[in-house]
């Protein structure tokens, strides 16, 4: 797979003259790799925290642990209904927290990707800034 990625393609920067290739590598190849990894990581975080599944079952009882109330006396029915409600509440709380942590992770991944891309593109500028500052005493 890795070897296939190395194979020739018409837009491969390695085929360009070195000067053009440098700009292609700096402004296109590496940023697009960072974006690719960022997008994949975001998707993975989304799946890891099972956000779709948790949203779909947000108000469902915890581990489907719900007692059937048919054929029960009214008093028992009320007690069981309360228990079922608690099960749902527990489920909702745990799921909401997980969704929150998941969304936070996704946001962080997204932010890291943006910083990564911008940072890499600006690297030569940063180097220039550092040198200018180093010599301008």
């Amino acid at each position, binding site marked *: 797979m*890795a070897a296939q990625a190395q*194979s020739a393609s018409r837009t491969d920067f390695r085929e360009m003259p070195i000067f053009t290739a440098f700009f292609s590598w700096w402004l296109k190849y590496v940023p697009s790799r960072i974006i690719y990894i960022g997008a994949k990581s975001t998707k993975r975080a989304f799946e*890891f925290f*099972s956000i779709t599944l948790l949203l779909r079952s947000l108000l469902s009882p*915890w*581990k*489907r642990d719900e007692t059937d109330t048919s054929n029960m006396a009214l008093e028992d029915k009320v007690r069981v209904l309360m228990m079922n409600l608690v099960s749902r509440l527990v489920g909702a709380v745990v799921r909401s927290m997980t969704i929150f942590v998941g969304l936070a992770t996704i946001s962080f991944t997204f932010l890291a990707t943006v910083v990564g891309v911008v940072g890499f593109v600006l690297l030569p500028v940063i180097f220039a800034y*550092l040198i200018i500052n180093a010599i301008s005493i």
Partner: protein
Amino acid sequence: MANFNINTARNFTKADKQRSFTSVGARTLKNLMITLVLLGMFGNVYYAVSLTQYLQNISFLAMAVGGAYLFVYFFLKSYNNPISYIDSDNIAESLDQKSLKIIEDVTQLARENNFSKLEPVLLMAAIEKDIDGKYMLLRAGFGLEKDISGIISDNILKIPRSENANAADFSEAFVAVIEAARGNAVDKKRTEVKVGDLLMGLIRKSDVFKTIMFELKMEEKDIESVVEWHDMLTGYQEKLALPFYEKPMTGGIGKDWSFGYTKMLNSFAKNLNTEVEFMGETHVYGRSKEVDEIERALSKTGSNNALLIGEPGIGKKTIVKGFVSKIVSGSILPVLRYSQVFQVDTGAILSGSGDEGEIAMRVKSLLNEAARAGNIILFFDNFHSLVSRAGGVGQANTSEIILPYLQGTVRVIGATSLKEFHRDIEASPAISAVFEKIEVKEPTADETVEVLEEMIPFIEHRDGVFWPYQSLKEVVRVAAKYIQNVPFPTKAIEIVDDVSVSVAKSGQKIVLNAQIDELVSNDLEVPVSEAQGQEAQKLLNLEEFLHQRVVGQNEAILAVSSAMRRARAGIESGKRPIGSFLFLGPTGVGKTETAKALAEAYFGSEKSMIRVDMSEYQEQSSIYKLIGSPPSAGSEGEKGQLTTAVSDKPFSLILLDELEKAHPEIQTLFLQVFDDGRLTDGTGRVIDFTNTIIIATSNAGSEQIRENLQRGVIGEQMKKSLLEFLQKKAVFRPEFLNRFDAIVAFHPLSQVEIVQVAGLMLKALSDQMAEKEITLKFTQGAIDRLAKIGFDPVFGARPMRRAIQDKVENVLAESLLSGKIARGSTVVLDEKDIT
């Protein structure tokens, strides 16, 4: 000649430049720059505390210089990463990095040895230095069992040398190899030529390599399989080495929270998802159709269950694991996402309680739990045992409990065999109707080799032995030919397991064909290797061996011996019985004795003879007694006497005694056996007869033989006259007679032969007495006398056994018991003693 120029190839130029980035100096400088950047960062932090301006300036400078160097370094390293051009005019540009390195090694070798031409044999030597190349060559048996160094050195010595040799002067043969390698890569839809392609090029275009592979019993398609095997294992390694963001997601942490508890299932079933996640994906060869069918069946609305029908050991559980792998890898239909497959331990449910009510409760609880959890697929191996009407240990009929759940509440995968499907499941139409039936067929020999290829690395790791490809082929060959009652792949896997452990125990490191043959031969008591050494001698002298037991009957012995030699030398088609003979002749002339002698010679013991008295099959209906009756709903059918015997002991001599007395329909049945070497029994099983020798005997035509002999008609003329007689009298149909490899006439025994028979039998008795340390001798007069008593014009030499019993054995027994004969005595019997 195709263009192959490494001096102008772009990938070679880039590879050359890239080497400067991997040199020690370049790597040291890179590490130094990384340190500089880190120091700069540290200094900058320190500046924040100390506010020393010059420190900040130095830090900035260090970070800028180091960072800029690394920035350019990584660009140049990436830029000089070689690219392969599969369709380039210069074939050298189609090579990948490893192949490119191999060619460079070849040129290096040429420079060191002043070769003026680069020949394919040097490529072979360079491939062996590469780790992938060495791996594939070892798998192909290169340098393991046979010493092939002589062939290689002879060919290297043939290469011309010159002090001014141009190291890059590739021979036409060399370029042809590379061209063939590229052709292979293109055929395999690869974008570059890999080491495996170079091997394919060698086997196609290099005479030396072909000679070596011929010596190692490897053909082109075997090398192709070795290359594919290597690619498959490399593919798995690459998959394992994928970065975290490329790995497949298996459901996430919320998966378990959204589905119910499975307390009962955890006791009575094992979660296959967990197993697959832990052990890694199960790769199912040639079974994607069955896996897809399960997926489709379980995705339907309404009854969504699948029933796998196939013989035990055919791979039904592996198919289910393949399906689970699809779930785990996320490449499944949306409706089955997050599903958990539990393999229910049917035995545990049915055991520990003789009460059917308790079993029913367990099943109900399980199904309730699965229904409640919402994402459970239940897998019942031996599903029939839950719905069996037969009763008994390990069986229960819970059809009525299960049925409502199967109608859309719970997804179930069942597995059963064809016989049990007919007997238990088909007998309950309602249960049968809720399943989508999926027939699981036995994998082919080639598919089985692929299954073994996948498991071999685990076996090798376990036992510390190495399996070359030839050994896998031998396992499959032996399993296909000699094991008939177990399907592929199980029978091959069992052999691999046994052989691997046995080789490891013996302290050896490489599994050789001879070890496989020896183990299987010992287990089956049949010679499975190619005839050689002592066995070949035995075959060459088979007539002599048979004549030790059979007197006269030269024509019969010659016909049988020739057929045996053809079979063991591998000339036989392998799709028919080893030999089929019709022995004609009067009673007591040695027909059965010849059959017994042959069983001993070929199968090692006369116990390997299945004797069928065909006079018991005179009615048409008796056909079922012979081959079994078909199963019907609720009953599994009767076993056939012949088919069961052959199925249990496929390496046998089948003696069909008095064939002419069997019903003509039964005779017709054997047409298929003689032609195809197989017979479908009443229960639908195909019984293999290719490892049997079939001998039919008949007394029909005895008179004809006698008359012919009296008139001096022998050989082909006798055979012709006999055939005419048999057809005229409609004893056998012409098409039936034509199927035999040989029709052999046994002539009545002459007086001299009768004496020889008596002599043979008495010798056997003497040998028996010798075991008791008693020497028993007979005078010629005694032998002549016994020959006279033991001969009957109608029954030939048959009464001889009785005569020896009455006249000799009884007397000896009495003398032994009365103490007249003791250990160490010598007894000589003469004519007078035979009363």
